[in-house]
């Protein structure tokens, strides 16, 4: 009996879904393909995409993706979207190369394809939307440090991952470029925690001992920032030294509460999903995309794409005591 009931329930569910998709057949339908389902980051992106769909009116988001982060699973999702003749596909790829053949095929059938968050090979999409870019990340990190140090200025230090980490080195380079804009800030040292919690912790303790006048530690790594905050708390330096940089709200909410972190930055998944949806919608309704193009993305403003078709959404979103709790539940 129970078995029969659950079968009926499943059938009802399938029928229910069918009627929903049949109702909205005239809309511009955009398949939002994510790395895996059940991930708070991507569910927040879906909410943003739905906000964009509501804003433009005649659009529909089809949120889909595999249960585990595999390229093969994403190919199946894309196959299903192609079969439904969607107007556009916006994908955060598990593999830039493995998805290329199927996305090229989708484009051949007239579907507008973009990648966002995690890109695909250049010839397999029209444009790629990065959450931010190196320059904006560097600038944001320095600005965050300047905010906590205050008008008086003071010493700051950088806690990075490994000395060979490409991303980190580019961001540190951009931070050094932005430093002259804040005359009070003095970068005294750059140390490396290798993205290991214990080494990052020890390096932070050493920094605190070595530079008694230190006002802020900037850690553009999600492992480093947590370890540094913990070290500052354990050394009873809360209020004297502030930790900032790039990190995840779920990992930092506790440290914001304790005061070792005042504010930090990372991309906002809601804005990212919103922008990806807006760009897909614009492309599906006739906007021209590709290298050296500009697309207007609603409340996120106009996004420019460079000669490779890569675009940056905005500077990283700043989190502090006012919003960290809300986002900690997301990612």
């Amino acid at each position, binding site marked *: 009996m129970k*078995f029969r009931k*659950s*079968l009926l329930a*499943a059938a009802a*569910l*399938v*029928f229910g*879904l*069918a009627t929903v*998709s*049949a109702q909205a*057949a005239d809309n511009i339908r955009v398949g939002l393909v994510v790395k895996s*389902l*059940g991930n708070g980051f991507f569910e927040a992106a879906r909410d943003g995409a739905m906000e964009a769909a509501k804003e433009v009116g005649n659009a529909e988001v*089809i*949120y*889909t*993706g*595999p*249960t*585990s982060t*595999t*390229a*093969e*699973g994403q*190919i*199946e*999702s894309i*196959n*299903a979207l*192609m*079969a*439904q*003749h969607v107007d556009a596909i916006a994908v955060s790829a598990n*593999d830039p*190369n*493995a*998805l*290329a*053949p*199927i996305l090229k095929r989708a484009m051949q059938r007239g579907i507008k394809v973009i990648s966002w968050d995690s890109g695909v090979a250049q010839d397999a999409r029209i444009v790629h939307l990065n959450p931010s870019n190196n320059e904006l990340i560097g600038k944001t990190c320095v600005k965050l440090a300047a905010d906590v140090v205050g008008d008086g200025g003071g010493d700051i230090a950088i806690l990075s991952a490994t000395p060979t980490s490409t991303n980190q080195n580019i961001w540190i380079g951009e931070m050094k470029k932005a430093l002259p804009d804040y005359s009070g800030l003095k970068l005294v040292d750059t140390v490396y925690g290798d993205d290991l919690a214990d080494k990052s912790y020890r390096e932070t303790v050493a920094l605190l001992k070595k530079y008694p006048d230190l006002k802020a530690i900037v850690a553009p790594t999600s492992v480093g920032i947590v370890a540094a905050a913990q070290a500052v708390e354990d050394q009873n330096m809360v209020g004297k030294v502030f930790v900032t940089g790039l990190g995840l709200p779920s990992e930092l909410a506790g440290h914001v509460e304790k005061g070792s972190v005042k504010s930090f930055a990372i991309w906002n998944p809601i804005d990212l999903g919103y922008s990806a949806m807006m760009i897909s919608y614009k492309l599906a309704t006739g906007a021209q995309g590709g290298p050296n193009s500009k697309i207007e993305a609603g409340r996120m403003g106009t996004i420019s794409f460079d000669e490779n078709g890569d675009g940056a959404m905005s500077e990283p979103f700043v989190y502090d005591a006012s919003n960290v709790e809300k986002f900690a539940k997301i990612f």
Partner: protein
Amino acid sequence: MNRQTLQQTAPHTTQHQTGNQRFLPDNLNGAWRNRLLRWETLLLVFVALAFFANTQLSPYFLDPWSLSDATFNFTEKAIIALPMALLIIARDIDLSVASTIALSSVAMGAANSAGIDPAGMVAIGAGVGLLAGLFNGYIITRFDIPAIVVTIGTMSLYRGIAYIVLGDGVYRDYPQGFAFFGQGYVYGVISFEFTLFLLLAVIFAVILHKTIFGRRVFAIGNNPTAALFSGINVKRHRMVLFTLVGLLSGIAAILLTSRIGSTRPSIAMGWELEVITMVVLGGVSIMGGAGSIAGVFIAVFLMGLVTFGMGLLNVPGIVMSIFTGILLIAVIGTPIIWRRVVQAQKMRSKMRGG
């Protein structure tokens, strides 16, 4: 002593037999065949239901290109399911097939980087698969270790080698000539992959059901000891089966690598269970000794239709795997429950009659 007891009990047994006429089948295969026939009919009914439901639920379903695209989702797994059915019928199992794909794909990527032409890459891909299967078979039969233990080991071993060779890197830029295997079409919307699968299905159906080798596979699965005593070289047959599974995994690796045009060590992650699900859904007894290629063939389409149909309705993947699980239990459970209901009714009517 023994003889005495025998003599004592013997008359008793004869009495029992004369009193209760025992059923003697004239053909040992008959009962099995009937049962399998029922199984395949049931599967066909499910396929028809799934097909009908899909046509009703989605306006996009009956599109030749959509259906053709959908076949890509399961063809490679289905190709491995064919030899896997033989292996499971022979009471063995191979959990390393997905890792064999990874190893074989990495070998082809390396060959491509070394400038070997597509024909050579195909030979290497199939060859590495064959060797991986042969290695499984050798270890299992030579040292008499259970297949599940050895293939869990080689599952990590083969993928581990792929990770060591490739790390977080990727092989791509496969030549245009290589793309045909996974992306090419033989005629209209009929893909090369799918044609190859149909051809292999026929070949495996013949091997299992029309050859002495196939009959021996059933014999080994029903009772390995009896098979051995009746003169079958059980070890060699098992080794051939493992090698076949490896070879077909290698062929699947060629198709998959060609289809996605790149190789990462994580390729085909988790496929072993999907392959085994297809085989079990096809009515192959996981205890060995029973099953048919026709059943597996239909099961492949059933799974393909159901997952593609749900994909068209944008059912989330998590719900999809729940549904596949329910389907598996439903298809396998229905005949068992049915038989029990029939037996209970017989009992009841007997009791009423007596």
